[in-house]
């Protein structure tokens, strides 16, 4: 079975197969042999590389929250066109999505506006925090998907910019 998982914008190709009572999980060309697998409710435990891991998890559709040794990993199944987070947008450059769920408090552009890299395209507010979404490129506003005062989800596309010249 093969999956493509995303963690912190890095993609991991994973291949799982069973060999007798063990599972072999191949991640980035390294094999992890998994034994003593127990999955129950919100906990999964297994042994690999000589160590037993007890991991709590929650799965919500394609999103998987995993906690291990006090650290949290937010992992997504990459089997759809995802809306990227800010970091990624700066590379991709034309889809401006909210980084968090919140209220769209300001949307100072309209379709057809010329914008410069760094211009504020939208301000989303949540939990007393304002997040400014800036244009990563020079370009023209091609499409606006939301209205001021609307509640937006994380990763929801708010504005699309048509590439002019990449600065």
């Amino acid at each position, binding site marked *: *079975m*093969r*999956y*493509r*998982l995303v*963690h*912190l914008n890095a993609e*991991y190709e*994973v291949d*799982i*197969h*069973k060999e007798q009572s063990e599972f072999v*999980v191949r*991640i*980035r060309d390294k094999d*992890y042999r*998994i034994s003593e697998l127990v*999955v129950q409710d*919100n906990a*999964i435990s*297994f042994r*690999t590389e000589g160590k037993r*891991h007890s*991991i*709590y*998890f*929650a*799965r*919500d559709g394609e999103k*998987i*929250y*995993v*906690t*291990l*040794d*006090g*650290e*949290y*990993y*937010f*992992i997504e*199944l*990459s*089997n*759809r*066109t*995802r809306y990227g*987070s*800010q970091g990624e947008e700066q590379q991709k450059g034309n889809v401006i999505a909210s*980084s*968090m*769920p*919140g209220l769209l408090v300001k949307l100072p552009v309209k379709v057809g506006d010329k914008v410069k890299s760094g211009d504020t395209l939208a301000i989303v507010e*949540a*939990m*007393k*925090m304002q*997040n400014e979404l800036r244009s990563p490129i020079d370009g023209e506003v091609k499409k606006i998907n939301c209205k001021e005062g609307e*509640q937006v989800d*994380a990763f929801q596309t708010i504005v699309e910019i048509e590439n002019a010249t990449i600065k």
Partner: protein
Amino acid sequence: MFKRILIANRGEIAIRVAKACKELGIITIGIFSTADENSKHLRYMDESYKVGEPPPQASYLNINAIMAAAKQGGAEAIHPGYGFLAENPRFAEACEKTGIVFIGPSSKALSLVGDKIASRSTVKKVGVPIIPGMQIAEREVTSFQKIAKQVGYPVIVKASMGGGGKGMRIVRTPKDLETSIEAGQREAKNAFGDETVYLEKYIERPRHIEFQVLRDQDGKTVHLFERECSIQRRHQKIVEETPSTALDPELRRRMGAAAKKVIEASEYTNAGTVEFLLDENHNFYFLEVNARVQVEHPITEMVTGVDLVRQQIMIAAGAKIDFEQSDISQRGHAIEARIYAEDPENNFLPCPGKIVFLNEPAGPGVRVDSGIFQAWDVPPHYDPILSKLIVWAENRDMAIKRMSDALNDYIILGIKTNLGYLKRIMGTAKFIKGEYHTHFIDENESKLRLRDSNINTAIAAASLIVMESKQGAKSPVESDGTRQPTTPWQEIGDWEICRR
């Protein structure tokens, strides 16, 4: 003693206050916005009143609605908690006018300590050191230039009504001063409706040390020692501890005495905190008075054995402080970590949403002041604080380990939190040594990043979870009704639908 108290807040602090009330035999009256109809704090209220729509302005900042609830509920006093209206002189005044006791200082004292320039001059008069800089707000750029030259660069431009870093500008060379003043004024105007800014010497790598003070209505003043709050992200404290590793007994004594002087000079009653900056040469400077119970008050409770919220209520009811300064001592070491619904891997942006699974730590020396429960949908309208994890131990080393273990035991799934990030702070050499200042987060950025070591294990676990939830499900029925047995190898098709 009061019979009925309205608690004008939500979340963990509303619960904290309600518990103190119940222990004193006081009936608790809660308030809630329509976003909080199912919130945990209401479980601790004997009665509750809806005060408005989700936006804070419509509900938790809505003085009229809250005063109406207080009247309807027959409240004799109001505890404001922290944040929202806690330091709002107009709210204290509204209480004073209707004969309801505001559990906090008078509106007059609130106004005084809320004005940074006025409180600086009050404090200077009684001989407590302030950061060199302006004594009054001035408008002329030339005045700023003159004083900047006097105190020496770097300097900082600050909003008079400021807080939370808004309106602040650090200026390192004379040529940047004028533009910084203009920018600060603009930001101050936007944030606080008042463009007044002033100038101070900028202290490099300061430690943020604050002293907890109590003062009763007869003027008896006692301090409960310090809290070190230098671990901050975006000018917000996230880890606090007491005692501070930066103070020796003599410096502690001098700062404690100074804190009491500040509170007395401000004619301040009830619980208040005097904030200081401590520079690298162990000089301390008055910063401001926090005129409320603070988020980090539990660490003081753990080492001094004094229940601060109970003291607040008792003092407001006219009780005298029944212990002396010499009765108060620091025993052991306490650390607090603030658990936020936020994503440390994405610039600490807030993450409201549903808590799918929750397990909170417990045991020796572990205290959790929590505002959450499993299956609760954290609303997006308020501060992202979910709960506070406080540990106490015999000494600082044990306290750090206890905090680290308790963070391990603290499981919140379904939303992103800073739990892992806090644990990384506990493992940082500079924190363990106690050698840190307010730029700790920035200076240790690389050390605080999620380490790679376990990512592959987490990825492997996630894959197993996906696989198991597929295998655990019944064999899928095709739209044509044929039933297909599922084997791992037949699912390779997943691969194909992945985006390249």
